[in-house]
């Protein structure tokens, strides 16, 4: 690996250029005369001055210090790091899609609108919902949108005392954060010894101040909430709505549907379940589906078909408005749409089946050496605890760092918060049994080393571009930008 630690700014040379532009062929405006005093920039910006080859080498080499799904196994629980088919990337680069302006006359954007419209239908079918909005840019924004709809729904019924949103203690951080942001009071309920919603606790909390319950199912332990029908009945009975965090949809595509479980609103992460690449942290897409009763509250515009044409319907008095500009992360939607078109009903189902089988396979192969707090058949992911190893001084974090040295992206660590020394393993369906076997073997070797040579595991990673980084230092003295 080529060691070049400089920032792009540190490669800048005054006067060097990396761009070419057509020569200006219109008269020049006199800037100071036109704009007057104080409007024009007095100094900077310190944007680097480099050539095209500098830029290409710099970022190509940076990319080589990064690990993606295309580099190897990425069992990052809750993130569904499945393989991203290459054809989808090509499709998203078609000029006829990528060079469309969102405010064009809808008649000149029928291709885009058809995709939105059909994607709404497909996702509605997959989720068991009535309609879907593709506006939210990610899961968290989907949640926010859903919660706004819950709010709007209750308000439309003048039911103003519903201020509480219930979330299980195993829920993802975005759930309570979104609820709080949407102006709700967040009530956390515990999980029972089986890892599911504690029914007594739920029972106790349910009253007419409850606006809704947020749940992911299978939950973040990878377990299906077996009481889901009971839960939804209870919540509905007390007048609340059920929100489905669809981050875990990869377990149940074509097998079961949140709508059928009694959920009123459900989001999916296209960047997880529907295989759009995660981009090192986005862009994603978090469409939400709603039951019939909630359709009027969906964000505007809703894409409708009138006669043979697709139109943008803004005339929806009960709509919560807009959660994001325009219509959603179109090019992400495009990739997910392509994925669905290539998988078909059978393909999606097979994907979930294989994802679940893969997770169970790893679970089985590790159960003797690691603690598995809820050791039964899991869905697409499961949680183990490195507690046994931690007693020897080898934490989940140490295990993760050792996996780096072995060429793996580690599982999610320390989430969900209700399990000690958690490692959350989600292999996805795009991994081969050979890959799983190799990973299992590595995990077993690490477990054995934790017994025989725990100290040896404390210094990983060694084979990476940088060794263990001082996060405390970073937070204590934040250096958030380069300074000239």
């Amino acid at each position, binding site marked *: 690996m080529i060691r070049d630690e400089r920032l792009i700014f540190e490669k800048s040379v005054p006067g060097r250029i990396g761009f070419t532009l057509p020569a200006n062929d219109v008269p020049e405006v006199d800037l100071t005369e036109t704009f007057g005093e104080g409007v024009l920039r007095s100094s900077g910006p310190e944007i680097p001055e480099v050539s095209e080859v500098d830029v290409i080498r710099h970022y190509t080499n940076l990319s080589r210090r990064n690990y993606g799904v295309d580099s190897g196994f990425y069992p990052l629980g809750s993130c569904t790091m499945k393989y991203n088919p290459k054809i989808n990337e090509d499709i998203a680069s078609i000029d006829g899609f990528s060079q469309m302006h969102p*405010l064009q006359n809808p008649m000149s954007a029928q291709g885009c609108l058809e995709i939105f419209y059909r994607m709404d239908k497909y996702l509605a079918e997959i989720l068991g919902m009535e309609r879907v909005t593709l506006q939210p840019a990610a899961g968290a924004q989907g949640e926010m949108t859903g919660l706004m709809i819950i709010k709007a729904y209750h308000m439309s019924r003048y039911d103003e005392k519903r201020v509480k949103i219930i979330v299980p203690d195993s829920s993802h951080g975005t759930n309570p954060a979104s609820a709080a942001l949407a102006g709700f009071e*967040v009530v956390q309920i515990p999980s029972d010894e089986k890892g599911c919603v504690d029914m007594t606790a739920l029972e106790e909390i349910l009253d007419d101040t409850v606006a809704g319950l947020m749940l992911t199912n299978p939950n973040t332990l990878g377990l299906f909430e077996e009481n889901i029908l009971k839960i939804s009945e209870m919540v509905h009975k007390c007048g609340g709505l059920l929100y489905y965090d669809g981050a875990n949809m990869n377990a149940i595509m074509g097998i079961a549907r949140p709508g059928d479980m009694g959920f009123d609103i459900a989001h999916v992460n296209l960047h997880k379940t529907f295989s759009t690449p995660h981009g090192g942290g986005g*862009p994603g897409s978090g469409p939400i589906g709603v039951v019939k009763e909630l359709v009027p509250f969906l964000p505007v515009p809703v894409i409708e078909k009138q006669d043979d044409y697709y139109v943008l319907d803004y005339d929806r008095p009960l709509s919560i408005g807009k959660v994001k500009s325009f219509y959603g992360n179109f090019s992400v939607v495009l990739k997910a749409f392509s994925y669905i078109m290539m998988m078909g009903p059978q393909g999606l189902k097979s994907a979930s089946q294989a994802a*679940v089988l893969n997770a169970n396979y790893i679970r089985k192969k590790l159960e003797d050496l690691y603690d598995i707090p809820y050791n039964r058949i899991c869905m697409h992911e499961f949680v183990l605890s490195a507690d046994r190893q931690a007693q020897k001084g080898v934490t989940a974090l140490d295990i993760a760092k050792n996996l780096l040295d072995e060429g793996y992206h*580690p599982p999610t660590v320390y989430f969900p918060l209700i399990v000690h020394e958690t490692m959350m393993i989600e292999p996805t369906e795009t991994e081969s049994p050979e890959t799983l076997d190799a990973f299992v073997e590595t995990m077993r070797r690490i477990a054995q080393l934790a017994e025989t040579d725990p100290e040896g595991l404390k210094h990983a990673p060694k084979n990476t571009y940088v*060794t263990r980084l001082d996060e405390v230092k970073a937070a204590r003295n934040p250096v*958030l930008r380069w300074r000239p």
Partner: protein
Amino acid sequence: MKSSYIPMTGEQQDAMLAAVGVNSVEELFSAIPEELRLKEDLDIPAPLSEYELKKHMMALSQQNFDSSWNLCFLGAGIYDHFIPSAVKHITSRQEFYTAYTPYQPEISQGVLQSIFEYQTMISELSGMDAANASLYDGATALYEAVLLAVRHTDRKEVLIARSVNPEYRKVLYSGLKYSGIIIKEIEFYTSTVEDKKSGTLDFDRLQSEINENTAAVVIQSPNFFGIIEDIKSASQKAREAGALMIAVCDPISLGVLESPGALGADIAVGEAQPLGNPMNFGGPLLGYFAVKSPYIRRMPGRIAGQTTDSEGRRGFVLTLQAREQHIRREKATSNICTNQALCALTATVYLSLMGRKGLKEVARQCIDKSYYTYRALLESGQADKVFNAPFFREFVVKPKTDPELLNDVLLAEGIIGGYDLSKEYPELEGCWLVAVTEKRTKDEIDMFVRKVSSICQGGLQK
């Protein structure tokens, strides 16, 4: 399970089922109540092969009138700028685009360093002390900025210029609807067309609305009409009232215009799509968010910070995570998790390629070409002046033909016309917002002006 994306073969499946100790795939799902298990296939189309898919999608794309073969004079927040080819060559490096958020910094230095560089560039452009790693878009960035201001000042009123992008205002209104936060819009100034201030923030109104309840003043510059606002005076007013100044600024314009930071703003946000990101029918976009130091720990979203590794070498990590949802849950500064990292990388590569000179040149050409177009339209006698303030890349005129009708005719001739302002500003009935980027040549502009004036002369009416 025959799919090129599912490697498990039938034989392997059997072996794995046996290893797990179940007899069938179905058994794996026995935790799902019987009545919930789907009995039929999903009602979605049968699978297409890759080649069929490609043909299908090409056909759909051909239903679109895109800017690769139509001339785009539409802006209104999203801009058709030139994107150097090298940008995509970097962002299509698989190590970048198939990675998750950099939770494991030792194997994510690529993304982390690029975010650090992005934060630096955004800070430089906006004249701020720090920036985050991106937000969904300009609109949500503004929403987050307002929340920051409300929390920081512990006040509940926000003053926002009516000349702020309507999309942004809508997102803000939806997001704050039940928050108890009161938003007041400040009109733009209008007197005579010739008044140099017309189209800019009405400072008298600002003065009369601002008070000790004001958490923030929000203005956009160039504003939605392309007009440059007086951020400096607005900042002064905000500071006097103890409110925060939030400036929404276009990043390309900051190649030549003074930074909001230098003009006294506390927070700068905006849409960074113009920095190398395709228009993509409006998404993904790239919300940038930058602040002065006092507000750093209140920022939403991911932030990369510099640190050292165990051998003392420079490295980067996600930092200040105590603000974030995965640690603080309902007390987090924001719920954002997945952001727009790849778009931020795009902007970073774009800015590196253009460099300081290139960015200035783009900004310069936007000014020259929009002014050239503006003057030619006025000179044609077929479009009237509406405002008279200096603008950047985009301007308002009132053509003799209704904008919607005009756009329809232009479209048939391969031109994507301007934005019909009456949609969002009833008071600007008949007004047309035209954007001209560096991509437009003199010949194209001349043709555009010729077509517009001949359509107007034709006297088309609704």
